């Protein structure tokens, strides 16, 4: 098996981020298009075993690497028993070596039942809880198919705040009939829960979801372009005024220490491995960067690991263009911007870059290119324009 290239110069091994996908949910939310399955009757023991074996398989590929972060995502990883979470953290440390102060995040639902596990999860080693509050009024929560109430969410957040060093909350905006004022008030209520990190996501109608069918039937009217833009701008204003920095399109942190180390690994094209059904991984830089996807269905993942020692179902070796595209697609969403010197392949077309800069969508400074707040609102278009432009001479400086 090819060992992916390390960083240029072959200095210290690259850091590694580890993503753990726990695909089970109590119920499937009507807007969700993630790789999720009903938890009832699911065989969590087999899945945990498969994840642990898969981790060992990865170790034989990457060797020992300092792990900077572990992220338990889903699905609903707060349905994992604290002992299961502890087993995964212990395995990562044993196989790869956890850095001192490594970030260990876990996504949780703010229901009373799950809040009862928070203390155990903290004891297992989770130091950052990402709480899926989504909305702070009961009617919206019901419409989103959530089982918790607004009161439960507040209780869960308070408990989490007291238990975990770092707390992030997820919110969903541009909900059915949500006004600008509603959203402003809701953001204020979320801030009152004293998180150090907030991820507000605009509701997106994804293909194949119950929401998509509802939109087609006219039951849900999605926010138009104007309202969506206004709600986004309100988000920026309110959170900035509260001392939260928008360090990515949908991520706001109260100071640098509150930023998600794990997600920054994605946006800066570092190495990460994914274990659990459907998890993605990336190893190596530039041409030859390895892109992996684990088997999607839990049953296939478990069987795959049992048969081969790895959960990886698809492997793709990116060519220089592919690695270049991902570098910029991910990197330009990050507020710190991206370092062109680290970018694989041809430099961004100078004329396209200059055009975007003159339009106030992109900033450049030595060793860095990023999107302005205006550019971030149009990130898909701006980044595509930069990458689709005919390659020209690179911008000096």
């Amino acid at each position: 098996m090819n060992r992916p290239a390390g960083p240029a110069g072959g200095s210290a091994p690259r850091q590694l981020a580890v993503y753990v996908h726990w695909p089970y949910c109590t119920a499937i939310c009507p807007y969700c298009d993630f790789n999720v399955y009903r938890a009832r009757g699911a065989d969590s023991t087999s899945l945990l075993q498969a994840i642990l074996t898969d981790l060992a398989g990865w170790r034989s590929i990457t060797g020992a690497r300092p792990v900077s972060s572990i992220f338990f995502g889903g699905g609903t990883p707060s349905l994992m028993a604290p002992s299961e979470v502890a087993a995964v953290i212990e395995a990562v440390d044993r196989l790869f070596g956890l850095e001192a102060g490594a970030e260990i995040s876990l996504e949780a639902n703010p229901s009373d039942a799950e809040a009862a596990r928070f203390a155990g999860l903290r004891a297992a080693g989770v130091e950052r809880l990402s709480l899926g509050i989504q909305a702070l009024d009961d009617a919206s929560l019901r419409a989103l198919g959530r089982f918790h109430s607004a009161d439960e969410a507040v209780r869960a957040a308070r408990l989490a705040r007291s238990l975990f060093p770092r707390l992030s909350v997820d919110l969903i905006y541009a909900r059915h009939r949500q006004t600008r004022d509603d959203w402003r008030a809701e953001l204020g209520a979320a801030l009152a829960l004293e998180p150090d990190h907030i991820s507000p996501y605009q509701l997106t109608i994804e293909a194949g979801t119950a929401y998509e069918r509802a939109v087609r039937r006219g039951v849900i009217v999605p926010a138009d372009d104007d309202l969506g833009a206004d709600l986004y701008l309100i988000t920026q204003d309110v959170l900035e005024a509260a001392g939260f920095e928008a360090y990515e399109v949908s991520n706001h942190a109260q100071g640098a220490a509150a930023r998600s180390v794990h997600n920054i690994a994605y946006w800066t094209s570092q190495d990460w491995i994914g274990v659990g059904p459907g998890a993605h991984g990336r190893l190596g830089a530039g041409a030859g960067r390895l892109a992996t996807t684990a088997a999607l269905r839990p049953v296939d993942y478990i069987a795959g690991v049992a048969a081969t020692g790895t959960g990886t179902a698809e492997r793709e070796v990116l060519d220089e263009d592919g690695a270049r595209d991902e570098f910029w697609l991910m990197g330009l969403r990050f507020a710190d911007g991206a370092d062109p010197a680290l970018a694989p392949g041809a430099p961004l077309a100078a004329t396209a870059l200059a055009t975007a800069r003159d339009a106030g969508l992109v900033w450049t400074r030595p060793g860095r290119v990023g999107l302005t707040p205006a550019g971030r609102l149009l990130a898909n278009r701006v980044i595509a324009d930069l990458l689709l432009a005919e390659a020209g001479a690179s911008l000096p400086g």
Partner: protein
Amino acid sequence: MTPRQSIRNFSIVAHIDHGKSTLSDRLIQLTGGLADREMKEQVLDNMDIERERGITIKAQTVRLTHVRDGQTYVLNLIDTPGHVDFAYEVSRSLAACEGALLVVDASQGVEAQTLANVYQAIDADLEIVPVLNKIDLPAAEPDRIKAQIEEVIGIDASQAVMISAKTGLGIPDVLDAIIDRLPAPKDGDPDAPLKALLMDAYYDAYLGVVVLVRIKDGVLRKGMKVRMMATGATYGVDRVGVFKPKITEIDALGPGEIGFLTASIKEVGDAAVGDTITEDRRQTASALPGFKPAQPVVFCGLFPVDAANFEDLRAAMGKLRLNDASFSFEMETSAALGFGFRCGFLGLLHLEIIQERLAREFNLDLIATAPSVVYEIKLRGGEVVELHNPVDMPDVMQIAEIHEPWIKATILTPDEYLGGIIKLCQDRRGNQQELTYVGSRAMMVYELPLNEVVFDFYDRLKSISKGYASFDYVMVDRREGDLVKMQILVNDEPVDALSMLVHRNRAESRGRVMCEKLKELIPQHMFKIPIQAAIGGRIIARETISALRKDVTAKCYGGDATRKRKLLDKQKEGKKRMRQFGKVEIPQEAFIAALKMDEN
């Protein structure tokens, strides 16, 4: 050589699907031209496109040998193109005949296209024998159709031959009628200098350029050095022969005979349809009348969708031109579409055929701009220029008059669609010349400016009449028109590929529809895009595409990298189909779609 009295030269006039090809096939079969196992349908239509569409683009000739009462007759069937686009080629083919079979479907009756062609045959002094086909079908009404032929065309139909080309019923009667009712070639002196009509020419992969000829005087022999009187070129004749329909070489063709010659002619363009062929050493005193060089009447720009295919397009056009001298092209540069060609065609069908052949035979993905007619512009200085491309229109201050081509259109339709069709013709500046009824069918004759017809008139007519109306036209003349150049400005810049000449009274509605269409067709950009229609500096219609305010995916984490990369790959493909115009990207479909008028 065949004695003149035993020769009959005839063509078949018919509407599409009325059975011309089937009847030809039957005649070939019955006279033993091909064994049954060699027969395939539409023997004479060689090109795929001819077979599929049931049309004839290139003339073909076939010599049928028929023995009756001990006497051997040579019957030359000339299969002519049926469409008005090839009216000149048709006229030259008819000039090679003495008679014509008028084939009419015994249930459907006379159609517009039949009329135009039969009048042409009558004008060429041909003897016409009506043939009613498909009389075996239950819907056949031979008496009604006979009456219709007499009423509409004005020829005696009492002796019409009743056949079913499909079953073979009545085919021997057709042979009898050809021999008994069509005249033999009238004159022709075998000892006179060679005088032969060049009926048509086509390129054959094995034989090179094949020239179809009708001998008027003298004898055409293998080895003879011939001269094309209009072009002045001389060639040594390599082969002389006839099609039976299999190619058969013979030594000589005499007066009244029809056959082919090959000489080392490089391009079909060197064999001009209608030219007179004579012997170089002993030339005939006067050329045959009626020669006209090919005149394109409709022009449009053809551009490769992927700019990288420009050279392929050039090569493909060169190859098509080898076989079709009436198609012309010259390089054109469009700010909107890049490098391409301005192409001239004999008409709309011709344009469609060429486009289709480029796409099909050469696998090219093309953008076609709006078809335009040829305008004659009289400048104030007295000079007259021809305008093939609205982009090249001289400054209005220099223009004294603009003349546009007019056509006479014949439309036949079931009367229930009459109202809609009249409205369509009126909207298109038509003048009604005639409106008559033939049973429950109405026949309208309209004079119309060709520029109102070139784009989507036929599509509209078909949709209004649910496909039942038939339409044909002949060019009439050029008339002065109050025409203005309308430009479309996207983001304040004129898009050359969308400019057009339009009648002043129609400009505003046309401009408004185009702006509305473009608003739908051009995707939102990060800035506001004004779309305007303008005449000179005056804006006559305006729409605005609002600026895109938000376009950003909410979530982007590890699992989204692949998804985003694949989406970008799709966008890379899509970008090839977009045309950058200033800061605005216009999808290529827009260039044609914007011109379609929905006049509901």
